[in-house]
């Protein structure tokens, strides 16, 4: 490890104040660094991929939203159908996110704090909604609650409408967003271990106190990020919601569904204006994640959120 300066940091590349590689002119190139041309080539490829594939569409979305001027942008958001879509999306998220947050905390407590048989099976089950196509997730609710479904005729005779109505959208969203909070909390709680909780117990804390005074403060930022991701997905869910919503304008269209309607009518300004709300939400999510990562309060196991 004689090479200082030019040698890349071996681990913890995200550490603050990482060596800037001053590259002393007279020294020979480090044996563990790529030739200069290759290094710049790879960096250019990475910048190009991220710029063209990820940043350009985002920029276009905002550009299109504002292409008719600020007046048209605001008018599109104040349209009664748009307002109804926004209201419905907020309602769906307000139901789905807290339920899945409570579930995530309970699941993480069981999985991360205890060793029991069948644990890996349970984790697989928690992840299951990630590997089911959203379209199939929506379809499954049609099979349960639709007119040809198991419970459909029974519900219809009581005058209860689940699919092609708000309850169906809520259920499909719940299904799709089940794993987010649990996925964020499980690795974090596992890394933190049980010592803090055990110490609290020896000092006389009761069960609930251990959780609310020790565990919860330890994982609060991970919980926040999990909730944000869950919320972003709940508000943006498209495939599953599309199957169960029935697409009744002004009634069962969430923001993404209304965006689809407007886009297919070639009303691009309105479509992108509405979409820009969700794009802004995702930007806020990413900024908060970057801040939390910098403060080193999230799990280091990586955040492969599917």
């Amino acid at each position, binding site marked *: *490890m004689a090479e200082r300066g030019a040698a890349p940091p*071996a681990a913890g*590349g*995200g550490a603050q104040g990482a060596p800037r590689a001053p590259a002393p002119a007279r020294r020979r190139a480090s*044996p*563990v660094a*790529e030739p200069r041309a290759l290094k710049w080539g*790879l960096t250019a*490829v*990475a910048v190009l*991929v*991220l710029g063209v*594939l990820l940043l350009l*569409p985002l920029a*276009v979305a905002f550009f*299109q939203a504002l292409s008719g001027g600020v007046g048209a942008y605001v008018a599109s958001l104040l349209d009664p159908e748009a307002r109804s879509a926004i209201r419905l999306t907020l309602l769906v998220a307000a139901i789905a996110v807290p339920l899945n947050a409570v*579930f995530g905390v*309970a699941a993480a407590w*069981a999985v991360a*704090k*205890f060793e*029991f*048989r069948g644990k890996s099976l349970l984790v697989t*089950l*928690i992840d299951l909604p990630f*590997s*089911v*196509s959203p*379209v*199939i997730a929506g*379809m499954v609710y*049609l*099979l*349960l609650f639709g007119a040809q*479904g198991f419970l459909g005729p029974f519900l219809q005779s009581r005058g209860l409408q689940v699919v092609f109505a708000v309850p169906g959208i809520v259920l499909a969203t*719940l*299904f799709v967003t089940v794993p987010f909070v649990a996925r964020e909390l499980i690795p974090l709680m596992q890394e933190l271990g*049980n010592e803090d*909780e*055990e110490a609290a117990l020896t000092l006389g804390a009761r069960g609930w106190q*251990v959780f609310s005074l020790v565990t919860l403060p330890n994982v609060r930022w991970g919980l926040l990020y999990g909730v944000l*991701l869950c919320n*972003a997905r709940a*508000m943006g869910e*498209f*495939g599953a919601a599309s199957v169960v919503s029935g697409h009744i304008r002004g009634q069962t269209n969430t923001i993404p*569904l209304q965006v689809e309607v407007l886009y297919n009518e070639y009303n691009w300004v309105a479509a992108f204006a509405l*979409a820009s709300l*969700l794009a802004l*939400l*995702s*930007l806020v*999510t*990413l*900024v908060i*994640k*970057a801040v939390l990562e910098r403060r080193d309060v999230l799990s280091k196991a*990586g*955040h492969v*959120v599917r």
Partner: protein
Amino acid sequence: MAVARLRAPSVLPGFGLALGYTLTYLGLIVLLPLAALAVRGAALPLGELTGVFADERSRAAIRLSFGSALIAAAIALVAGGVVAWVLARYRFPGRRFLDAVVDLPFALPTAVAGIALASVFDATGWLGGPLGRLGVQVAYTQVGIVVALVFIGLPFVVRSLQPVIEELDVEVEEAAATLGASRLQTLWRVVVPTLLPAGITGFALALARAVGEYGSVVFIAGNLPFRTEIAPLLIIIRLEEFDYPGAMALALVMLGISFALLLAVNVVQAWARRRFGRG
């Protein structure tokens, strides 16, 4: 006591409550609906399932969905590998910003990504225009579908590889250099094999997501039957025709193929882990 043997002893409270709640919730929200699919699927006449393969439109949709997903996951593996390497190893202005950008497809709703990509690659779009003059049509062709799926798959590959690259032992690379390997030889014969298991994980995640992806694809796909109609869209069309058995059969065939595909990936993964360790 039988219960005691089911879990290792612990002084922490709340196991029964937490596990009970978790299982009940999962049962209601996840398992009950999937059980409905299983029960209805089991009652499906066999002819309905084989009919999926007999029907040319379904066959075309399935071939398109899985073919595009495989191509896209492979492209995401290569491109994501480069991105992960650059973000983990190099220091340059704007690196933190790019690192944050990687997660965009996770946070951006699929429908928003879909209309934005379609608009970029449309014949009148920022990239679609210039590419069109070169004779390359992206939007409303399979190329467009692959582009959307690479968009969706990229972060899975990057986030699977990046932590492993950051923890690579530089001394191994130094040893290779000491033994006379050129840097390219070291990269190809020492670094890439070490990263293979993590790369396969990312590939599998991207593939699994791409197969069922709907929102980001439908806007750029064109949706022509037999040509650019993906399987999830065909399921929706069948549902809108109230052809529930047809939709279910297609869904079950899709789930079956995905399962087989991921099983195959897992076999390769197990081999790579045995052969190269790590990941």
